[in-house]
């Protein structure tokens, strides 16, 4: 009984930190309409900054706290709002997702650059001190945490209900334009909210850092816990968010408690927010479709079948030439880019055409790689067949609860699923376990692809075929339906379209494509393990696809080659700072611009085409003939 009480205290403490983090998230979301994926990243960066002042430069704790929580964090929040978020107002959910995810990835890159991985002791406040209440020893740090959370709740209530600024904030939430007409400056209110939000993230980061050993990934993942709590309040209600946070904290603590007495399920604590999120998603009622949105974005000219075949042939010819020129080591590097481009094709269908965002694409890739390892022994094509068959149903299962709701929820669900899979699914001994699985290369029709050159050409052929297939899909009935659904979900509904099943079909197809690509990705690398398919690895893939141009096949090729280049150039392993910093920064600057790099290049070459006769006559080069890129549009 005493144990149970002790764990209850621990649960409330953990829940308090979650509540602080989650309330900051809700505050910024409600006042600016932008869901800040970088919320955990801000907390992480601030925790590191605090560590720098407090333990590296030995500032007194109160001074370090004051400078970080009340000066640097709000300034950072305000800066982010002013530079990045203000321009996002009214943009599609997809665009704002890409920018905040880019910001998160960039913050991680900055932290890795400034604080390279090493042990950094981060003691609790007043370590060793505490009081005994009802026979239970509560540390000073725990007491402080609970008091801060309670205080934050009070301040919030007072701010929102008893001050002019609070009323202005609530007005901006209800109707931004109307509030502006009544003399409220939505920009100022939103800047204030972001400053406050960043401060709260900083507090949460500093309080939780001692138990997470000041680790970049874990601290950034605070955002997952925060939104799992916030979903309880439908991302809007602060009191319900507090309730959600405390429940999540208690569940985490009781789970540890039950281990003392019974066996443990490995990875369950890490997956707990995922489970909670999915339960909540199932309980949230279906949202009303919004009518009267602006529809029809500047749109694509889809290449004809002939054009896409010509582009594909050109790619394969170039690949054959390259395979003779480059060394094996370099072929693997460029091949990595092709494999990534193949993965990004799955995002062209989902994000580019369908307007949905997935943050778990690498999880599906991992399933494909596993299928190739398990069923493709000796290079059997069965592995290739099983890869999409394994990824597709799991994708469907994951997406189903979120698809009834707005686009943001699908992104949240996939992110949670990615985290859940890396904690509970992939580490299972029958999947990857703690070891590395060998992924064989294909042996088919007497052809062997064990050598680098033929495998490289194979990748190019597969990409060309898939690209032609994707474009054919886009030109056909299904492509028209998906475009129609992105332009106006409401109109589609009244015409008799079941939005949920159609979106499900798109997501399942995309998951299957990612799984299929995973078989090639795994066999190119020759091995696969849990750490290759962390949720965080999906983010550069999404961001780089958008940078390349997620609405076009040539954009996927550009993005894949860019990311491959970046990954192979940064040698320090899976989370090399360079990849994150560069991808994040590029996404932040380009994410707002709907036209990816592929489109930019084609625009630059357009005048050239008219001047040079042979270029005009030439078979269309793929990047030149792709449809006009366009960023992920929000779905209703």
């Amino acid at each position, binding site marked *: 009984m005493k144990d149970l009480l002790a764990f209850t205290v621990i649960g409330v403490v953990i829940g308090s930190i979650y509540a602080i983090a989650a309330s900051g998230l809700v505050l910024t979301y409600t006042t600016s309409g932008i869901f800040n994926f970088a919320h955990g990243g801000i907390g992480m960066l601030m925790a590191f900054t605090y560590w720098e002042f407090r333990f590296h430069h030995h500032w007194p704790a109160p001074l370090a706290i004051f400078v970080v929580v009340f000066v640097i964090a709000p300034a950072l929040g305000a800066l982010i709002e002013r530079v990045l978020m203000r321009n996002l107002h009214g943009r599609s959910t997809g665009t704002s997702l890409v920018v905040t995810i880019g910001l998160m990835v960039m913050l991680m890159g900055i932290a890795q650059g400034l604080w390279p991985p090493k042990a950094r002791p981060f003691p609790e406040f007043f370590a060793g001190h505490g009081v005994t209440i009802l026979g239970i020893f509560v540390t000073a740090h725990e007491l402080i945490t609970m008091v801060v959370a309670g205080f934050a709740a009070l301040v919030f209530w007072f701010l929102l209900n008893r001050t002019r600024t609070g009323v202005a904030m609530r007005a901006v939430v209800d109707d931004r334009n109307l509030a502006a007409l009544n003399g409220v400056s939505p920009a100022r209110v939103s800047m204030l909210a972001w400053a406050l939000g960043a401060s709260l993230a900083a507090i949460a980061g500093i309080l939780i850092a001692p138990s997470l050993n000041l680790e970049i990934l874990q601290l950034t993942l605070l955002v997952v816990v925060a939104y799992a709590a916030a979903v309880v309040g439908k991302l809007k209600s602060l009191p319900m968010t507090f309730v959600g946070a405390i429940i999540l904290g208690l569940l985490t603590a009781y789970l540890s408690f039950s281990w003392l007495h019974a066996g443990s399920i490995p990875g369950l604590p890490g997956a707990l927010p995922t489970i909670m999120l999915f339960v909540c998603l199932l309980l949230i009622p279906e949202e*009303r479709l919004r009518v009267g949105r602006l529809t*029809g974005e500047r749109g*694509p000219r889809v290449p004809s079948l002939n054009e896409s075949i010509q582009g594909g042939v050109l790619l394969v010819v170039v690949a054959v030439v390259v395979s003779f020129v480059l060394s094996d080591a370099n072929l693997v590097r460029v091949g990595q880019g092709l494999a990534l481009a193949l993965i990004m094709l799955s995002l062209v269908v989902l994000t580019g055409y369908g307007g949905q965002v997935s943050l778990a694409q690498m999880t599906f890739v991992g399933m494909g790689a596993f299928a190739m390892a398990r069923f493709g022994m000796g290079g059997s094509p069965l592995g290739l067949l099983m890869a999409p068959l394994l990824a597709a149903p799991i994708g469907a299962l994951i997406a189903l609860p979120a698809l009834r709701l707005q686009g943001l929820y699908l992104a949240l669900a996939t992110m949670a699923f990615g985290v859940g899979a890396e904690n509970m699914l992939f580490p299972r001994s029958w999947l990857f376990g703690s070891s590395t699985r060998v992924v064989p290369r294909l042996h088919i029709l007497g052809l062997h692809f064990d050598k680098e050159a033929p495998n490289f050409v194979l990748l190019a052929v597969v990409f060309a075929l898939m690209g032609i297939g994707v474009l054919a899909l886009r030109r056909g009935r299904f492509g028209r339906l998906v*475009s129609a659904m992105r*332009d106006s979900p*409401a109109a589609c509904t*009244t015409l*008799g379209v079941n939005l949920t099943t159609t979106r499900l079909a798109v997501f399942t197809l995309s998951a299957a494509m990612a799984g299929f690509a995973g078989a090639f990705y795994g066999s190119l690398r020759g091995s696969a393990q849990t750490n290759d398919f962390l949720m965080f690895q999906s983010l550069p893939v999404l961001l780089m696809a958008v940078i390349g141009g997620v609405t076009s096949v040539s954009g996927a090729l550009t993005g894949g080659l860019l990311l491959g280049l970046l990954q192979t150039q940064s040698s320090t392993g899976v989370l090399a700072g360079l990849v994150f910093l560069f991808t994040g920064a590029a996404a932040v600057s380009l994410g707002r611009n709907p036209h990816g790099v592929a489109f930019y290049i084609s625009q630059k070459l357009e005048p050239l085409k008219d001047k040079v006769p042979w270029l005009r006559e030439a078979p269309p080069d793929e990047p030149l003939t792709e449809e006009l890129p366009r960023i992920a549009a929000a779905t209703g």
Partner: protein
Amino acid sequence: MPLLQAEEINVTFGGHRALIDVSVDADAGRITGLIGPNGAGKTTCFNVLSGLQPPNGGRVIFDSSDISSVPAFKRGRLGMARTFQRIEVFGSLTVFENVLVAAEIRRRWARGEQHGDITEECNDIIDLVGLRSVADQRVDSIPTGLSRLTELARALATKPRLILLDEPSSGLDDDESEAFGELLLTLAKQGVAILLVEHDIDLVMQVCDRIHVLDFGSIIAVGSPAEIRKNKSVQKAYLGEG
């Protein structure tokens, strides 16, 4: 019994009662008007009928069965189509593709039926509505009036038994408006039930068989165009107390 019958619909937004005990109906082969000042609740009423807005009370009966709890997409499949006051076209597709996609959608859910040539079918609709000259243009590049007609053409491609038209003639000039009136009469002759929300009172008086007048969320009058013209409370609602 009318094809569509809505009984005592109530909708509340927060503390505001947008619709109060509203009953409307529409017969097959007839054009029924639904008029009223701005903010009277006409579009909300359409949203309830088409299933986009769950009402707080009341029933919607279509073809003798209660469809109050039927989701919007299934109402579409029962033969109920609509247009939107704030246009909801598929802007990235051409006018022809807008119609084509609707015809394709219908073929997905009406699998058992005999279907003719889809291109021919769509072209017929485009000619009927008068969109031939812009058929191959993207809808986000054509004038508003034509976008509205595209919405109507798209609705027709699902072969509806009832069409809810939300201010279809705004954005059309006088000649176009007149042609549009003729089009509505033609459709009605083919047996389609039309429920028309419209600001152009002349058009309404010309084509409608019966008119419902909505003011502040309540129906204040129902009757023939002549009766509505004479009705005192309608005049008051439109012209004010003076």
